[in-house]
């Protein structure tokens, strides 16, 4: 075990240095009209984090994302368990889910807006819409591939359906399900941000669109950097939990 962790850390450090070098080179090539240098961007991001007027936007996005993720998880689990436990429903539903996964859901945005109006509900709905499908697909696959003996034993012990789900199925399927949750997490974030980009008066996505309109490169770069750092950090944590669950 020793030696693997430092090696991985070294590889990650190498990657970071490489990315920063590419960024700096791009900056030298494209100039200040197109993008800002790594150092300036980090400085401006720090400055943004120091301004009080930035926090309402951050909190708005965080709130929308959390609610959306809650809906995506609840709905995804419900669909996944229902279709996973009933073989025929699963056979009918799975291709539909896969098709839903691969269509550009972004085109549905106008419909979501017409249904929910501009503001928080639309953002939440759009985030959840993106996140729910992978969670449902992975949950469905996980539940279906469970050892049927578990289910038979649970039924023999006369457990109630909710007990079967919470005590037997969920613990047994959790590693697979968690992979779906990880993907759903990222897609919900993307969906929420997209929602904010189109029709919203607050949030990180709104600031991004405003940045394009005002040609505020500093703002765009700093926000993009923040988003990437948050997304990669969250994904790294989820990935390590994922690996631990699979052991």
């Amino acid at each position: 075990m020793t030696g693997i962790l430092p090696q991985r850390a070294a590889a990650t450090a190498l990657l970071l240095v490489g990315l920063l070098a590419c960024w700096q080179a791009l900056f030298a090539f494209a100039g200040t009209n197109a993008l800002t240098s790594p150092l300036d961007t980090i400085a401006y991001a720090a400055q943004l984090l120091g301004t009080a007027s930035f926090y309402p936007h951050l909190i708005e996005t965080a709130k929308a994302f959390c609610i959306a993720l809650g809906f995506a998880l609840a709905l995804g689990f419900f669909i996944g368990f229902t279709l996973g436990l009933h073989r025929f429903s699963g056979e009918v539903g799975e291709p539909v889910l896969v098709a839903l996964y691969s269509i550009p859901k972004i085109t549905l945005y106008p419909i979501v807006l017409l249904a929910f109006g501009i503001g928080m509900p639309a953002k939440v709905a759009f985030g959840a819409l993106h996140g729910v499908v992978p969670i449902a697909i992975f949950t469905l696959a996980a539940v279906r591939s469970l050892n049927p003996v578990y289910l038979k034993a649970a039924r023999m012990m006369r457990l109630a359906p909710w007990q079967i789900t919470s005590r037997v199925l969920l613990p047994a399927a959790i590693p697979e399900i968690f992979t779906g949750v990880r993907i759903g997490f990222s897609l919900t974030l993307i969906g929420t941000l997209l929602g904010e980009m189109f029709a919203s008066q607050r949030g990180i996505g709104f600031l991004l669109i405003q940045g394009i309109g005002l040609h505020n490169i500093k703002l765009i770069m700093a926000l993009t950097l923040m988003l990437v750092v948050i997304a990669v950090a969250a994904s790294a944590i989820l990935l390590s939990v994922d690996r631990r669950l699979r052991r």
Partner: protein
Amino acid sequence: MTPGRVRFALAIGVVLLLEGLVRFGFINRFAMIPPSEMLWDLGSLLLDGGIWPAIEKTLTDVFLACAAAVVVGVVLGTLIHRWRLLRDALDPLFGAYYAIPVYAFYPLFIVIFGLGDVPQVLIGFMLGLVAVIVNTFSGLDRVPSVLVKTARIHRLGPVVTALRVSLPFAAPYIFTGVKLAVAYSFIGVIGAELIMSRTGLGYEIGYAYNNFDNAVMYPLIVFVLAVAGSVNAVFFMWEKKLLARRRR
């Protein structure tokens, strides 16, 4: 009843339900038009011809993004796979890649490349690229060492080995990446067009939405979903056919 028939019946049921809900006023016509009208309006839009440049532009961009993602992805995947250190360094990036909201880079691309087709193609390309690379890896990882050794005995160079031995073996895995790249190119290009652009189907949908022009918006949404859905379905069936031939 086979699952396929049930699915078909369900789809018909949902469409009829929507038709009824709108016709009898349970859903405001301001919010949605009946599905039959969507199809009718789509027909007249396509016959009218004004929409074809946008369709052509979007499909060209999707094709360019997808083709570039597949070609660059397979080449990069093969190269990186040969170089252990680079792969170790890039693995964390690939693992976290799809958590990065790629659209966040779109404003940046517009600033750098201007508001033409390039930023949109680039977004589609970026979304698809890593899926192809990762799946190329997983295919190349599975090439039996016997094949590699045989290639070495025949004194094949690295390029010929890749083209004649390892890539053909990895093809089914790479195909999974290609399928994802197709889906992601559609998502990337049309999404970028919706956020900001001057032409294309995404732009037309956004424009119709802003003008409350449901008679254009809904038919176009149906069109995009139908085209993306059938392209994905064609690739799905093609893959099934290839796999069936391989198993024989």
